[in-house]
């Protein structure tokens, strides 16, 4: 994804990104985050709770929501806050699409405070996760 060369403007849309989480990734993310909830790596157990396969972790959705924004924004942007709501289940292997639109751009001491509305959509376009990501957009950043 190519980062914008100047601070964005309100209403600007980020290029969408389509992806999926593999079974292996869900297992590894559970392991590294010390999350032993069986619905994330045990498909038979997940079925007992009504899920068609192992379930994408909420925190992994939060990572995705944030990371695509940061990738789009480039090195001049830094995460200030993120919030999200889980609206539907996503499971391993399911095609998902990240989308985001710049909601506000306001000046701040460091440069600009940029807020985006971001979402993860299911293949049929239904929202899986919705939220917002707030960035500090530095006017001139000198270190990574």
């Amino acid at each position, binding site marked *: 994804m190519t980062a914008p060369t100047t601070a964005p403007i309100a209403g600007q849309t980020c290029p969408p990104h389509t992806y999926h989480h593999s079974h292996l990734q869900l297992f590894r993310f559970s392991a590294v985050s010390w999350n032993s909830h069986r619905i994330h790596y045990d498909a038979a157990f997940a079925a007992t709770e009504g899920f068609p396969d192992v379930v994408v972790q909420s925190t992994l959705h*939060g990572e995705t929501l944030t990371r695509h924004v940061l990738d789009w924004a480039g090195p001049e942007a830094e995460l200030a*806050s993120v919030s999200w709501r889980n609206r539907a289940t996503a499971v391993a292997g399911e095609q998902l699409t990240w989308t985001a639109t710049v909601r506000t751009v306001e000046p701040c001491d460091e440069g600009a405070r940029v807020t985006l509305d971001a979402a993860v959509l299911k293949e049929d376009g239904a929202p899986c996760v919705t939220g917002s990501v707030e960035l500090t957009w530095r006017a001139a950043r000198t270190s990574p």
Partner: protein
Amino acid sequence: MSAALEEVLGRARKLIGEWEHEDCGVLAVKDFCRYAASLNDDDYIRRARAQEAAGEPVVAPPLFLAGTLSWQDGPTEDALQRDGLAAREAPCTDGLPVRHVHGGQSVRLGGPVLAGTRVTAERAITSADHRSGRSGEFVLLGITTRFTAQDTAEDTVDGAELMAMDETIVVLDLDLPDAPAEGDPRPAGGAAA
């Protein structure tokens, strides 16, 4: 509301505002890199190891603290609930026929989270509400966690708030006549995590 959900609600309301303190330990570059690896972030790993080799501060992936479900050493398997969660990760539900999903999260970043920093967390239930929707009744627990730097890496301010996080956990009766549907008010997204 079922007796199980009544019990969850009663337990939770007694705990509202009671802050638990937890030592998250000293953060290590390896932990950061493994977390990044699980996200397929090679760039982070290369950069972090290069910074470490050069004696420069290494900052954690932005959501590392929020993404880590537990900082405990355990528990061992025999102390986990049937769904694999430890009691701490499924508050107020021990021994009850319920299940959990994660409703959502709000994370505010403070100072940089640096390798070598000892971090402590304060955590409390801040709300407990009974709700009902199209698919039935549930209890919504609000939990707030604050992460603070303690004796620290060289470039971190002692006592600085590193992150504050609000999350909601949805507690449901275990019996499920069918799979949760999209748009179900029982948020079916992630799981209690």
